[in-house]
């Protein structure tokens, strides 16, 4: 945890998905996510800035505020915002179309 991005506290999950799907090294992965979110890469690990941004984009928060997207809904919004193909989201749409 001393060197990690902090997952939903910041943009760690988004950078992880970029590495998984696009196979980008860390700097390129951060640059990709930063561009999608219209922020500087250094902002991606800023808990305050990312919490506000995640609320604004409604892409999931680490705190359980009511009314904000969670679970599959958050992932669907992440997929759209960051141009990811998220398996569980694809399966949801296959079941609900």
């Amino acid at each position, binding site marked *: 945890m*001393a*060197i*990690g991005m902090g997952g939903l506290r910041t943009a760690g999950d988004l950078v*992880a998905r970029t590495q998984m799907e696009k196979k980008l*090294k860390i700097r390129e992965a951060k640059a990709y996510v930063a561009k999608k979110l219209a922020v500087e890469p250094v902002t991606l690990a800023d808990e305050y800035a990312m919490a506000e941004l995640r609320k604004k984009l409604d892409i999931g928060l680490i705190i359980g505020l009511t009314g904000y997207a969670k*679970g*599959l809904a958050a992932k669907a919004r992440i997929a759209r915002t960051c141009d990811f193909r998220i398996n*569980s989201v694809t399966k949801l749409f296959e079941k609900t179309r």
Partner: protein
Amino acid sequence: MTKDQIKADIEAGSNDAAEKAHVAGLTGDEFDHVLEIVTEPSRYVSVEHGREVVLTRDGGVLKYTGASRYSGSSLSKEQGITVGERVVGLDTMELGNSDYSFKPCKAIAYDEAQHMENAQMVSIIPLFYGAMPNLGSYYQSLGGPWPAPTDLLKNGKIKESRETQEHAADDLKTDIIYLAKIMDQSGADGLDFDTTAAYGDAEFYASLNAIEQVKRETNLAVEVGMAGEMIMGMHCELDYQGTRLAGLWPHQQGKLVEKAGASMFGPVVNTRTTKSFPWNLGRALAFVKTVTKEVQIPIHCNMGMGVCGVPMAEVPPMDAVTRAAKAMVEIADIDGV
């Protein structure tokens, strides 16, 4: 240890790696940087702003549920995922069986898939399904169908030893594909191969070929964590795309994992328990530095108990763990842990 002793051990560890694997060791500036990290007076150390990396979590829910070798908490797998995501703040999590190998998972694949479907409904971070290839589970010595190659080798039966490994490798590949397809169907984000090649080159062979097929036939990302810094030559005549597998070092392993189509590679350097932390860290850094230079997919260094500089202890000391992690980021330039 004095500062001079620590520096001498860092250099000796780096030189050991350089000599064994024919890689460039650490440079003068890098030795000084590692020394500075190791002798920092704080209990925990961290990286500069902007150098944070991704934490992928092999073993996953096992660490937060009832497995006696981990926390032993009375939580379900789904609750374990929630702990990892919302309490610990991990970047990814992983579902796995307490008998954490592909062969036993096959029998309960649909039960595991149910956990994956449940977890995918409520989680936001990427979820892998993880297991060890564990070729040994296909041998009769561990309840499998094939004679153990070590028993055959003891009696001078080299040809038979190779044949049994090839049969076991075929079975392993079949089981990996079976599980992968079920997990893909359940919405998993990825498949994690843990301790790959623990049983040598035949296991690595099966894993690489399985990864190719997983990438061709499913939507899963693949992460590959290794078992050791060198592939044991149990068979010695298996190759992958023209490269013989026996005797490969981490940078060579990573290139093949990349060719097979994996998204992330996790090198391992085994901790030598008779040597100091600085020695092991210097050695691990020399190996991993070469991996990050030569392998083009993200490098997620394995940094648990007994690997990549971390001391071999059931409860790893955090001062050593954070120093090893910081050094790996700042000197070996890893993309994740």
